[in-house]
């Protein structure tokens, strides 16, 4: 995999805006995902929409750090941060259970993810002597986004963010492993797929929206595992699936249109133009 190299990339949307979207949208979605708050159908949908916000934030953070060229390709920082984020998310809900304060779980998860990301970022910078200025901040951001995304999708399946729910509905069936690898893909794919001298932030973010909704769509299918989430005869999984699929199709279409516009040439013919030597 050729890493991008080069240096800081231009951005039309500032990192702070996307950070705010991820943190506020992510936490809000997860908090509203508790079925006791908003009924059995809307709640899981909001939980997964929160996770979508977190993925978009994470994808932008990957873009900022990987445009420096890590020497190991874009995906590596993705799955490392997801591993940190999953441990962070689990620490959050577990600590909240220990303290008997379920409500602080998601915030603790985010904080634990940020701390773990920062620790590994510091290790990479101080001990391994990596020379990337934004490494600590971006590793922390991606890990935090990962923690929120995993918690959001998990709470959509489990119907809440209590430790017992997550253990029984997400970890015991092994769905946590899918979230680990699929959210890795969703966060690192947008920049990894679009990198190159003509990479453009808006197009990359469009792809990030699409990858985030792809995870939501699959989460919708997996939410069938929890049939108790029904409201007025409509199962929650169907709503997650339909909204996820609509979001996926719309964002995909907008990404394809943007790509066709930015392409050097769009062709349906089996013919190669002559190149000037």
């Amino acid at each position, binding site marked *: 995999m050729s890493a991008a190299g080069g240096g800081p990339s231009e951005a039309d949307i500032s990192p702070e805006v996307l950070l705010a979207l991820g943190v506020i949208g992510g936490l809000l979605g997860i908090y509203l995902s508790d079925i006791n708050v908003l009924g059995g159908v809307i709640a899981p949908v909001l939980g997964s929409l929160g996770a979508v916000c977190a993925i978009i934030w994470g994808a932008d953070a990957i873009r900022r750090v990987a445009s420096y060229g890590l020497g190991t390709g874009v995906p590596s920082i993705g799955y490392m941060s997801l591993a940190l984020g999953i441990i962070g998310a689990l620490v959050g809900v577990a600590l909240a259970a220990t303290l008997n304060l379920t409500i602080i779980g998601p915030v603790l998860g985010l904080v634990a993810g940020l701390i773990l990301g920062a620790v590994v970022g510091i290790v990479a910078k101080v001990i391994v002597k990596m020379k990337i200025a934004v490494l600590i901040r971006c590793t922390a951001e991606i890990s935090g986004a990962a923690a929120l995304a995993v918690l959001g999708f998990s709470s959509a399946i489990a119907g809440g963010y209590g430790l017992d729910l997550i253990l029984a509905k997400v970890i015991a069936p092994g769905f946590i492993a899918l979230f680990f690898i699929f959210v890795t893909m969703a966060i690192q794919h947008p920049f990894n797929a679009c990198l190159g001298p003509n990479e453009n932030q808006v197009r990359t973010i469009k792809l990030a929206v699409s990858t985030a909704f792809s995870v939501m769509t699959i989460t919708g299918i997996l939410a069938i595992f929890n049939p108790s989430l029904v409201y007025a005869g409509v199962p929650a999984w169907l709503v997650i699936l339909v909204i996820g699929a609509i979001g996926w199709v719309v964002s995909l279409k907008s990404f394809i249109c943007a790509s066709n516009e930015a392409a*050097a040439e769009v062709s349906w013919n089996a013919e190669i133009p002559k190149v000037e030597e």
Partner: protein
Amino acid sequence: MDPITLGVVALMGAAATIAGATEDIETDIGSESNPNSQVQLAPQMGHLHRFINKATSGEPVAYGVWAGVAGSVAYLFLHLFNLNPVIAIAAGASVAALVHTIYTVTSHLGRIVGQSQFGQPVYWDALTQALGPIAGHGFIANFSIVAVAYLITLPIEGLAHPFPLPLLAVMWGITLGAIGSSTGDVHYGTESEFQQYPFGGGIPVANHGDINIKSSVGIKNSIDVGNFCAKFGGPLTGICFGLLVFISFWITVIFGLYGGLVAGIIIVLILIILNNRIEVFARKTYGPYKE
């Protein structure tokens, strides 16, 4: 030794072999992983091409995702609706094929447009004609990976793995991706992409990006790559993954707990000697490099 367990282990080995072969052919058609650096470089070197540029992360993460989706959906159908395992796994692999196809389109568009200043057009016909083979090979690979994961969890003596099916599917998917990108891709990167250079040598850095864009008839496309690699790189990747899955469980089934671990270490020593024999064979047969 339980003959039924042994039969299941053999079936796992067979499924893994199919998974390995189709995974490698799929990633050669899609041009995923390391040899894709050449497809990526070609437009800068003045070679406009009609290959797929599928930079869907490395193969391990990609196959972790596809197999994970297939395994999770299959697990759902198995446990909730008590469906026949074959149908449940096929349903899972179908969902995975859909995800796989869409990620293929986005990564191809992303990378080609990301370097549009070199004039590389987006050939939609080249992309769409390769999607079928990519999704098809991916389906077979994912079906087989999830089948391996399912067989390991069967509650029979000597197997009955404690991990849940989706977790095992993700882990085997990542492992197969690592094997596929390490073995079969070499045949694509060293031979198929550089067919115009003589056989018998590495590719000097100076020739990087100078890939072969013509096939025996017309302009070379990704399907031609699949046809090429299906003859050697693909099957060997299958043998590699098949042997791995088979040996890692066969040893404890045949030799018991302690004997199995000793047998495993002995097999590793045999592999070291085998590798040395191959190295010596190459040195004797080919001799030092001649211009």
